[in-house]
């Protein structure tokens, strides 16, 4: 089992952030959750830039990524992560309202690990967050950082 690594939540809508955190609390998910508001902040966090210059070292266990975000959207973030040797192995889960075919195809082509459409029903959303959290932040094993 992994030590409890951070979950990076990229979501620009404050209400969605609140609901996601509530859903995690309902599920007793003990991992620390770092919330960022757009794609630029995701990359700043991952690359120890800006206000994350002094953060504790280590990649998150999983990135929960919204697609529609200001400045840099989820697709662009994913492209950046997958083409960065230090970041490319981080599991990325898309968490979005959009079931748009084009988004599904694009993100899978870019090597997303999972794609989850947020259910409108809150109980179902809690269940979805539970599944995502327990799998990616607890059960899943990660390769060593920095490679062989």
């Amino acid at each position, binding site marked *: 089992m992994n030590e409890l690594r951070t979950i990076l939540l990229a979501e620009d*809508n404050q*209400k*969605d952030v609140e*609901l996601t955190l*509530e859903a995690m609390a309902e599920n007793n998910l003990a991992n620390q959750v770092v919330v960022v508001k757009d794609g630029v902040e995701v990359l700043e966090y991952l690359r120890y830039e800006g206000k994350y210059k002094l953060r504790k070292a280590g990649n998150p266990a999983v990135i929960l990524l919204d697609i529609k975000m200001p400045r840099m959207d989820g697709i662009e973030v994913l492209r950046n992560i997958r083409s960065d040797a230090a970041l490319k192995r981080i599991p990325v889960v898309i968490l979005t*309202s*959009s*079931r*748009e075919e084009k988004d599904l195809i694009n993100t899978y082509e870019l090597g997303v690990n999972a794609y989850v459409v*947020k*259910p*409108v*029903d*809150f*109980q179902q*959303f809690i269940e979805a967050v539970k599944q995502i959290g327990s799998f990616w932040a607890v059960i899943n094993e990660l390769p060593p950082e920095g490679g062989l």
Partner: protein
Amino acid sequence: MNSKPKILIVDDRPENLFALRTVLKDLDIELVEATSGNDALKATLRHDFALALLDIQMPEMDGYELAGILREEEKTAHLPFIFISAVYTDNLNVFKGYEKGAFSFITKPFQPEILINKVNFFISMYQHEQALFVLNDELENKNKELESFSYSVSHDLRAPLRHINGFVDLLLSRFYDTLPDKARHYLDNIADSSRQMGVLIDDLLQFSRTGREEIRQTELDMNSIVHEVLETIKKDNPKRNIEWRIATLPGVYGDKALLSLVWINLLSNAVKFTRTREKSIIAITVLDEKDEFVFAVADNGVGFDMQYAQKLFGVFQRLHPTNEFEGTGIGLANVHQIVLRHGGRTWAKAEPDKGATFYFSLPKNKYHE
């Protein structure tokens, strides 16, 4: 299309080209001349032609051979020809691919009026075709815009709805005991309405998807489609007493998934609106007309007033209150859209309390697009 229609004239003799040029000089067209088959082929790479006038007797490559080659090329496959020959020849079989496009003959010496008339005929045909292409493009763009609009609206509507649901749920689960009854009742109403809106959005999304999905037409056995659909419907309504009267249905040409959706909607509607009957009778019939099959689903249900019949196939149109018969009113809109995309029509006949019959037609011509 502002530019003049271009006409290719091919003749190995300069004096013949001169004669053609003179005859056609008053027409509002642009002439491109070629003195050999090879020249002509090169010209087709640079220009889009409305018509080609081809001399039949030319050295190296004659008019038929040239026409045959042009029919093979995608760009000129449908280019109409007027063959110009010294003697009337009926050896049409030497011209391969004549069935792909229009063509005509004229024999030398020709009367200028006849050639002008023929050329004008092909030009006006070409211009109509071009105008149709433009309209078609515009229509396609409008459709795409509309679809992407409704799709993104549906998606953006989902987010606030999710928030309402989420916070109502949290409020009820965390503070249920401290809330007065009235407050719980209001919250239940909010939750109920937002659930309803969720269903509406999902239906709208599905409708928009049905409208833009590509139709994959194959030969289909309507009997097996109807029986598959019927199995599901029977499973979903185990307690109902329904007599099904199903005629033998013909094979049709269409999209299996979409036509299944048509039957699902029509049959589940029939089941729904006969719910108040002790015994439901639902009949599926077909009429074999000259150019089309007309399928019908008749029931002995509550029917409706024909005064509102034109509303039936619209999006979110309902003729019964939700507390009597549930549903958002998207089903028949889907039916209408799918049938329309197959080149058919939909209509209905009914009387209040005396049942309803829903019809849809499918053209027999399998090459219908």
